[in-house]
């Protein structure tokens, strides 16, 4: 009796151990990092992605399924810069997983490896949901992807040294393709230089900086706080004499302010994919950038 129970127990333990040993288990906060992870690690990892392109990565409910996913993770890959401050700390507290706590190798924060823009000079909630560490939507500048890729590959090698050769060669291959693609995008985007756009939220600051787009107005003057009617009227008044080419937003942002503006001054509403899955064609980082530039080209005049 005891013997058979022991056999069952060892079988169960064996199953658990083999299922976790076969691939690195990664909890990823945003789809863009999952795409990068697939490039750098392929089938060496199994990932769970916490958000989709249709969710605001700032505001997420700390669902039980996410606690269970963090519990099993060998590595978490998140943006940082306070993007996940409303939900990730809670998942980490509840999951009881020492490997992925702050400061451990299993905790990878992408924003730590790039230069962030829009770091506020004064930090005051009267200014809205400000991010003391700067704008966290870092993934729409290819330079940032390049830097994060280096750091992430290094981290994968650190955590899973047995596959280091594979991670290194995948990184080299990715960086080659990425730098070629970046050159193509930059060439294609030369006519976009100075393109005037309004934006719903400061979600595209890095894209604008990279392509020299001119974001002439933000429909959410204070981040995270919907504009008042008076603020919208001021923006309208300011834009009417010289309307921008369009108003851009992410798939998850409230459509009402951009609807309103586009109807008033007859400009295009452009829902950029923002991240993987935001449009049917944005299936990885490369197609995300392709689609984004294509959609801007379509509306450039």
């Amino acid at each position, binding site marked *: 009796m005891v013997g058979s129970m022991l056999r069952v127990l060892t079988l169960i333990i064996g199953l*658990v151990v083999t299922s976790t040993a076969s691939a690195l288990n990664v909890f990823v906060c945003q789809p863009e990092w999952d795409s990068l992870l697939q490039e750098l690690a392929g089938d060496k990892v199994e990932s769970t992605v916490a958000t*989709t392109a249709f969710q605001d990565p700032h505001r997420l409910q700390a*669902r039980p399924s996410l606690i269970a996913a963090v519990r*099993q993770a060998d590595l978490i890959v998140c943006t940082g810069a306070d993007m996940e401050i409303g939900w990730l700390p809670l998942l980490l507290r509840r999951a*009881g997983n*020492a490997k992925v706590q702050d400061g451990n190798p299993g905790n990878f924060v992408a924003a730590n490896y790039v230069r962030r823009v829009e770091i506020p000079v004064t930090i005051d909630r009267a200014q809205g949901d400000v991010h003391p560490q700067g704008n966290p939507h870092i993934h729409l500048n290819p330079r940032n992807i390049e830097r994060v890729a280096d750091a992430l590959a290094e981290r994968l090698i650190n955590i899973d040294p047995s596959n280091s050769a594979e991670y290194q060669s995948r990184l080299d291959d990715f960086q080659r393709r990425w730098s070629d693609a970046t050159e193509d995008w930059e060439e294609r985007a030369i006519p976009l230089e100075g393109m005037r756009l309004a934006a719903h939220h400061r979600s595209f600051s890095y894209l604008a900086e990279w392509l020299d787009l001119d974001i002439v107005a933000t429909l959410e003057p204070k981040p995270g706080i919907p504009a008042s009617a008076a603020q919208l009227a001021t923006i309208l008044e300011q834009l009417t004499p010289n309307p921008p080419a369009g108003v851009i937003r992410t798939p998850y942002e409230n459509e009402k302010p951009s609807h309103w503006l586009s109807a008033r001054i007859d400009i295009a509403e452009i829902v950029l994919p923002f991240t993987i899955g935001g449009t049917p064609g944005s299936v990885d980082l490369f197609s995300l950038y392709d689609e984004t530039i294509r959609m801007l080209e379509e509306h450039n005049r």
Partner: protein
Amino acid sequence: MLLILGMPVSSVFAQDLASEVAELRSLLTQVQTDYDARISDLENRLATAERQSRRAQRDAEEAVELAEQTAIDQSSGSSSPNTFNPAIGAVLVGGYADVDRSWDQVPGFQPAGEIGTGEDGFSIGEAEINLKANVDAKYYGNLTVGIGDEDGSVEVGLEEAWLQTTDLPMGLSVFGGRLFSAAGYLNGFHFHADDFADRPLPYQAFFGGRYSVDGIQARWVAPTSLLVEVGGEINWGGGFPATSNAHNSPGAWTLFTNLGGDIGNSHSWQFGVSWIRADAIDRAAEEDPEAFTGNSDLAVVDFVWKWAPDRNPIRQHFKLQGEYFSRSETGLYAGLPYDGDQDGWYLQGVWQFAPMWRVGLRHDVVDADNGPLLAGTGLADPGRSSSRDSLMIDWSPSEFSRLRMQYTNDKVLPQSDNQLYLQYIMSIGAHGAHQF
């Protein structure tokens, strides 16, 4: 003759000329294509050079900014004694109540904690100050102090003071100190995070608002894709329904389990069962000086279901939650043999129908069956259940502020009462994370 001779000569000459012209033309075309190729090559090179120079310039600008930022980060970060300050937050709660028939004890239940309708009129409620941070690589610490005003004198209460391990293996974590018990769904939340202006009746009647543990909690999360969490608590403190028992032996034990997961792309759920065993010695309250000595067994079943289209709760979401409490107490009350059974439940739905706006509906009820022996004492069988129906609407212009209006039809006392609550909840300081 000349003419005859001249013909072939001139034709030969013309032939030579034609071939020369052709040669010249081809030479010219060659020069032209050569030139075109060279020009376009030059243009390409110029474009590349321009691109490279633009990139180089951008790199240089970036490098300068990076260097500056690094210098700023280093110079501003190294010498400040505030660098290791914990996350500090405070919550201000207050409001106005229009209550005609107030109560501070649910009929058939021994009173505990500060429960009931509160006072008619304006009150500043309780301000809460919270500090939290990693202690070191092994522990995380949390302190919450509540400051209130009781008839003109300031009262400071220790709401939470606990440590949590952060480096135990295999999904284990251990808490120690004063903490909110994991029994029941709502018990783990601070009052200011509630969806209604007051706690549901079962929480007021069975827990005195909240069950706190002075002791140890251990919990384990299973390595499964469905959330499976089990844990236990030992309570040495005197948190109702237990008593401190002179700290010789624990006053109460808890066992709890939570399951949870997702259904499809828009639904998630959590289900919990918990059990509290309390040994009470001379348990009494100011409002009811008669004492109870004996055993108290309480079972709580809770569930919460949340809906948010595409898991995006910003535009709209819905939350349905309910809990059922069942308690059996045996022992001596006011010197009389006492064997009582009490139960209660609540069901509430809260719908965020537009950004910033939510409405909620709640029904809560408790019922005590204390037997005929206790007639005339504080636990006299009320012979009826106590219930309420509440409707609330609240507005949250940001994550940090909320204004709420609540209407309650209160049938806790034999005569029903229509009550109105206006409430403000403001958070300042560190950004807290929100529990599911």
